[in-house]
């Protein structure tokens, strides 16, 4: 297990008597696309919050790239190469799509304590930002204020922002949430292209997408990890079928 990029050990999160993350241990191998599935309220988003640093943990350990990051604040984890997207779209609505991404490029290139020079005209930042936008297929919408993008486009923008931080590990919290068929196809295509280039942890409800993308799947039920395996074996796992996947879906 030493070669894992992300190692979660006995992680726990409670709100009073409510145990949201219950002794979760999970290893993510470099380069894999690791999906986490589970019924609503299983604690998937909480787990992502804990990994990304938005929420603290009551006990347990998170190791990233060999380093204990359990107590690091979110912004420092990002600098180590741990990026995330949000389930509920979180962009800067007043900034153009390009600036949203350029901001992320700026965060990892040089000091931001510069008080002179127009940041929007920094070609170095804009070129890299445009590359990330092209990667998700949003290049033609670069100048549009993010608040005016369609929901699907915002999901793609979110992905581009994550990419712009040049992460070693990308945490995606339901990138397909609320997208129509065409948009979700586009996001899945993008993820297929990214797969292999970086390690991805994906939370998703869309089972077709999960089983076509994931190298391995973990199943979370009521805060407990009940199985981690290849998509085929997860499909066949009787415990998983009983706990989560409706029999009719599993044909």
């Amino acid at each position, binding site marked *: 297990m030493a070669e894992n990029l992300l190692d979660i050990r006995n992680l726990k999160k409670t709100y009073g008597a409510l145990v949201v993350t219950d002794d979760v241990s999970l290893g993510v191998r470099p380069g894999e696309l690791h999906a986490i599935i589970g019924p609503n309220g299983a604690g998937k988003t909480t787990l992502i919050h804990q990994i990304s640093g938005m929420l603290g943990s009551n006990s347990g350990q998170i190791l990233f790239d060999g380093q204990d990051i359990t107590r690091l604040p979110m912004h420092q984890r990002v600098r180590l190469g741990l990026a995330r997207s949000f389930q509920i779209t979180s962009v*800067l*609505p*007043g900034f153009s799509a390009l600036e949203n991404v350029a901001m992320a490029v700026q*965060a990892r290139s*040089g000091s931001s*304590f510069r*008080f002179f020079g127009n940041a*929007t005209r920094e070609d170095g930042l804009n070129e890299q930002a445009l590359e990330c936008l092209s990667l998700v297929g949003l*290049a*033609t919408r670069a100048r549009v204020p993010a608040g005016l993008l369609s929901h699907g486009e915002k999901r793609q923008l979110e992905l581009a922002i994550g990419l712009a931080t040049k992460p070693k590990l990308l945490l995606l919290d339901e990138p397909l949430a609320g997208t129509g068929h065409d948009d979700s196809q586009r996001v899945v295509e993008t993820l297929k292209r990214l797969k292999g280039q970086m390690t991805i942890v994906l939370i998703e409800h869309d089972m077709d997408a999960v089983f076509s993308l994931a190298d391995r799947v973990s199943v979370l039920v009521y805060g407990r990890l009940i199985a981690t395996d290849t998509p085929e074996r997860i499909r066949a796992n009787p415990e998983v079928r009983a706990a989560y996947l409706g029999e009719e879906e599993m044909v």
Partner: protein
Amino acid sequence: MTELAQTQPVSVRSPGWRPELVPIVLFAAFAAAPLLAPASGAEGYVLSLLTRVMIFGIAAMSLDLILGYGALVSFGHAAFLGIGAYAVGILASHGIEDALIQVPVALIGSALFALVTGAISLRTKGVYFIMITLAFGQMLFFLATSLAAYGGDDGMTLPSRSLVGGFPLLKSDAAFYWVSLLCLFGSYAFSRSVVASRFGRVLRGAKENPARMEAIGFHPFRYQLAAYVISGMIAGLAGCLMANQAEFVSPAFMTWQRSGELIFMVVLGGLGSLHGAIIGAALFLLLEEFLPEILHGASFMMDDAFRSHLAENWKMVFGPILILIVLFARGGIMGLLRRGRHG
């Protein structure tokens, strides 16, 4: 990039009117005023009123830097005016009358006060931030009232205006006007640059969505604190000018009402444009100055007793006017001007 240019939203502008012209017109007006003032027949009065407008413009603009671009509602901004003014007053009372020493001391003092109070206040959000900045402002106000050696409650009169490099450069009101204009322009140009810079972009981003900024690797606190310090220093400069204009320093410079007025000026002019704050300060001070006479004149059909009562209690009209402007001119004066461009 050519295909990008074509996707830009096309804004309809009536020819000849562009909001970008507002700051140019504004500064041109300030520069032209001394040349036109003699025609009014009350040159001294006009210049001193406009100097006051410019000084408050600097203070309001410094507040806009954190309020309009960082959504940090500081309700203790007058404290920095007080620090600037008292730096001038206290040093002068000890025989140090040169602005080349007074101003740096005022700026350093403001920066330190901003650094300490900001580091504490910025750990809170929303209404708590407002209350804690108010508390720090009041703390400094009561400190000033207890400084018996420097006039306490009554304040103190300066022996004269500050010297500049040993020369009594600020002695004439006309020269002081130009120096104030220079300070206004300098702090405007600096603030403009800050807002557009990498730093300013992070500040603006943290205003829109702090969680997103953290998720790309920024710690908003550091940027907000730096902005708070910059803003405090600019307000401190305004305080130096204020003391010099009045040749007098008192705790009244930093009452909480003054902090409230500064917020009002910024909101009146329109948040987040910098020059809007200057326009807001101008409108506020000019209304305050002329409303009694306007009311007296406008109520010509009433009897004399009513007219003088009205002029005396002009604040009863002033308040509702301000409220109406804020209610119906969303985005303040700058909001009106921007909408004008589509009309």
